[in-house]
C-alpha cells in the first residue's frame, strides 16, 4: 500500500508534511514547480509551501499576481509543455474566479484529445471553517470538484496521509485537486484537532488514490467521513464507546476515485450509516454516499435508515454561535449515531 524504505519518522503537522512531500518531489523531478499567491516569501498562507522558496529559489517557487484564471491557465499550458506545476488556489472559496480553466480545460483536455495530451498538475487549496471566517472563506466544496469529470480529488485528514497522497498527486499524470482543511494543518495560529499531526516517515512514499482508510473499527454504526470531520468523528466515537456503542470510522481520503467497496463493506458489517461531512448538505458528497446504500439495499441488511450530517444548505455564518450551529460538531455526530441506534429495521 505505501512504499517506505527509510524508516525514520517524526511527528509533523499536515502543513509540514505537504511541504516536505513537495520539496522531496521537487528534488527528484526538476519539472515540478510551485506557483500561487503568497506561496514564496510568505510560505503559503496555510504554510503548505513553507521553506520551498529558500530551497528552490524564485524560478521554481513563484509568487503570482491575484490572477487565478491567469495562473491556472498557465499551469495547464506549462503541463501540456512538459512541466509538472503545483498551483495553489489560496482558499477553495475563490474557485469561482477561475473554475473555467479548471473544469472546462484542465479536467477535459486529456479526454478531448483522445488521450493524446497529458496535463500532470496539482491544484492545492485550503478548505473548511470553524474559525469564523464567514461565508466566502469557510467552504469545503470538494463535491463540486468531484462532480465534474476529469479531476482526481484528494482530501487528507492527517500528516501521514497528506505526505503520501501529495507525493502520489505530484507523480500522477492527471490533474489532481488536493484540498487541505485549514483546521488540521497544525498552524500555530489556528486551533486544530491534534490527531491530524502524526508520525511521518522522512523517506518518500506514496499512498494510492481510491483507498479509504478504516480509522477505527466498530460493529454498530459506520461513519463515513473525511478531512477534519474524521477527528470530530473519532472524538464522538470515544464518547459513544463509553456508552457501549461501537463505531467504525471510514476516512474516504479521495473522492475521485471513490472507494465504494470500503463503504459497502463497512455498512455490510454494521448495518447503519452516518455520513459526516462539512460541505453543504444537498447535491453533494453526503448524497453520493447515501445513494450508494440506496443502490445496494438488495445486498445490505440495513438496521436503520441512512443519516447525513452536513452544513444545512446555508452559507457559513460569521458569528460563533451561528457557525458552531452550521458546521456539524462532535456532539451532533454523537447524537446522530445514538439516534441511528434507536432503529431496529432488519
Amino acid at each position, binding site marked *: 500500500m505505501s512504499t517506505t524504505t527509510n524508516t525514520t519518522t517524526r511527528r509533523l503537522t499536515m502543513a509540514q508534511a505537504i511541504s516536505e512531500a513537495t520539496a522531496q518531489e521537487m528534488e527528484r523531478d526538476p519539472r515540478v514547480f510551485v506557483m500561487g499567491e503568497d506561496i514564496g516569501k510568505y510560505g503559503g498562507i496555510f504554510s503548505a509551501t513553507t521553506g520551498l522558496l529558500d530551497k528552490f529559489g524564485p524560478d521554481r517557487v513563484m509568487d503570482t499576481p491575484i490572477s487565478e484564471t491567469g495562473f491556472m491557465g498557465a499551469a495547464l499550458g506549462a503541463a501540456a509543455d512538459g512541466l509538472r506545476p503545483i498551483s495553489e488556489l489560496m482558499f477553495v472559496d475563490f474557485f469561482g474566479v477561475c473554475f473555467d480553466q479548471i473544469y472546462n480545460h484542465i479536467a477535459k483536455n486529456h479526454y478531448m484529445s483522445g488521450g493524446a495530451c497529458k496535463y500532470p498538475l496539482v491544484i492545492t487549496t485550503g478548505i473548511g471553517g470553524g474559525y*469564523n471566517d464567514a461565508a466566502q472563506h469557510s467552504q469545503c466544496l470538494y463535491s463540486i470538484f468531484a462532480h465534474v469529470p476529469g479531476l482526481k480529488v484528494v482530501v487528507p485528514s492527517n500528516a501521514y496521509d497528506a505526505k503520501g497522497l501529495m507525493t502520489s498527486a505530484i507523480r500522477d499524470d492527471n490533474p489532481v485537486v488536493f484540498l487541505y482543511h485549514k483546521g488540521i494543518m497544525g498552524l500555530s495560529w489556528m486551533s486544530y484537532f491534534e490527531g491530524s499531526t502524526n508520525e511521518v516517515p522522512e523517506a518518500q512514499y506514496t499512498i494510492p488514490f481510491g483507498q479509504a482508510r478504516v480509522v477505527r473499527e466498530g460493529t454498530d454504526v459506520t461513519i463515513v467521513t473525511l478531512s477534519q470531520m474524521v477527528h470530530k468523528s473519532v472524538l464522538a466515537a470515544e464518547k459513544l464507546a463509553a456508552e457501549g456503542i461501537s463505531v467504525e470510522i471510514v476516512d474516504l481520503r479521495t473522492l475521485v476515485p471513490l472507494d465504494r467497496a470500503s463503504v459497502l463493506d463497512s455498512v455490510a458489517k454494521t448495518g447503519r450509516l452516518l455520513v459526516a461531512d462539512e460541505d453543504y448538505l444537498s447535491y453533494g458528497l453526503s448524497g453520493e454516499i447515501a445513494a450508494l446504500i440506496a443502490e445496494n439495499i438488495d445486498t445490505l441488511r440495513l438496521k436503520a435508515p441512512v443519516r447525513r450530517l452536513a452544513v444545512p444548505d446555508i452559507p457559513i455564518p*460569521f458569528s460563533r454561535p*451561528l457557525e458552531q450551529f452550521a458546521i456539524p460538531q462532535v456532539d451532533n455526530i454523537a447524537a446522530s449515531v445514538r439516534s441511528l441506534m434507536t432503529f431496529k429495521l432488519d
Partner: protein
Amino acid sequence: MEATSEQLLWMYEKMIEIREYEETMVKVYLEGKLPPKIQKGLAFDIGAGPVPGEMHLAAGQEPVAVGVCAHLRRDDTVVGAHRPHHFAIAKDVDLNAMTAEMYGKVTGLGRGKGGHMHLFDPAVKFSCGGIVGAGAPQACGAALAAKKRGTDQVAVAFFGEGAANQGAFHEALNLAALWKLPVIFIVEDNKYGISVEKSASTSIASNADRAVAYGMPGVLVEQNDAVAVFEAAGAAVARARRGEGPTLIEVKTDRYFGHFQGDPETYRPKDEAKALRQHDPIPALGALLRARDLLDDDADTTLRARVSERVGAAYDFGRNSPYPEPEDALLHVFAD
C-alpha cells in the same frame, strides 16, 4: 475643486475616527487570542476572543476613504473590499451596528452573519466583500441603475492594487466606459497584496495608466494625502454626475499594520511600517487646518473627544449586545 473648510474639517475628523477605530480594534481583536488562554502549542488563535476571524485594518489608508467620500451623498453607492472599515466609516455606515457585526452580535448590520469582511448598510448604500476584485462590476450595476432611473447618483468601487490584476477589474472598466456609467474606480496602492509587492504583481508602475485601455481618464495621486485625493475624486465624481462616464484613480497609500492581524510581516523590512508613519496623513491635515486657522488645540481636543466617545460607544455597543440564537443560522437564506 477646492475643499471647503467644512469638508477639510470633516475629513480630518473622519480620519481620526478611522484611525481610532482601527487602533482600538488591534487591542480588542487580540483579546482571548494569546497564550495561555488558547490551545496549548499555539502562538495565537484566530478563532478565539470576542472578535474572531480574519481582521484587515486600514490604518494609514484614511486619505483615500475620506478624500473620495467627502464628495458622496447617502444615496451614492460604495462597494469596498476585504479591508473595509475606513470606507464604511467615511460613508457614514452605522458605527454601532458595524461594530456589533464584527462581534457577531444580533444587533450587527448583518445580525452577525457577515462579519468584518461583509458589511452591508443599505441606508447609505454601502457593501463590501471578501473576494478580491469582485466589487468593481457590482459598482457598475449600481451606476447602471442610476443611469436607467435618470438620476444623478454615482457609484464608487474601492479596491487594492493587487485586485487590479484580477479579470473582474478589466471587465468592469470596459463595461463602465462602454456604457458611460457614473462610476469611479479607486485603486488603493498600499504596495502589497498580502506579501507580494506591486512590482511582483503588476507589469506597469501605475494602474492609472491602465485607464487608456478603456478610453477613460486615469489619475494618479502620488501622495497619501486627503486633500490630493479630494481633488482628484472631486473631478471624477463631478464628471460622473454630469453623465460623462467613469474615471480610474490610483492613490499611493500606506498600510501601517500587517495584511491581517497576526501577519508575521517577514516579507517587509522590519522598520518599514515605522518609517511610513513618519508621513502620517492625519497630522499633516491637522497642520494644514491649523495653518488656515481652522483648528487649534482646543478644537482638536474637543474633536478628538467627540470621536473617542463615538468609537468607544460603538465598541461598547458591540461588546454588550446579545449574540443571535444558534438556530438563527437557518434564517435569511432566502427572502420571503
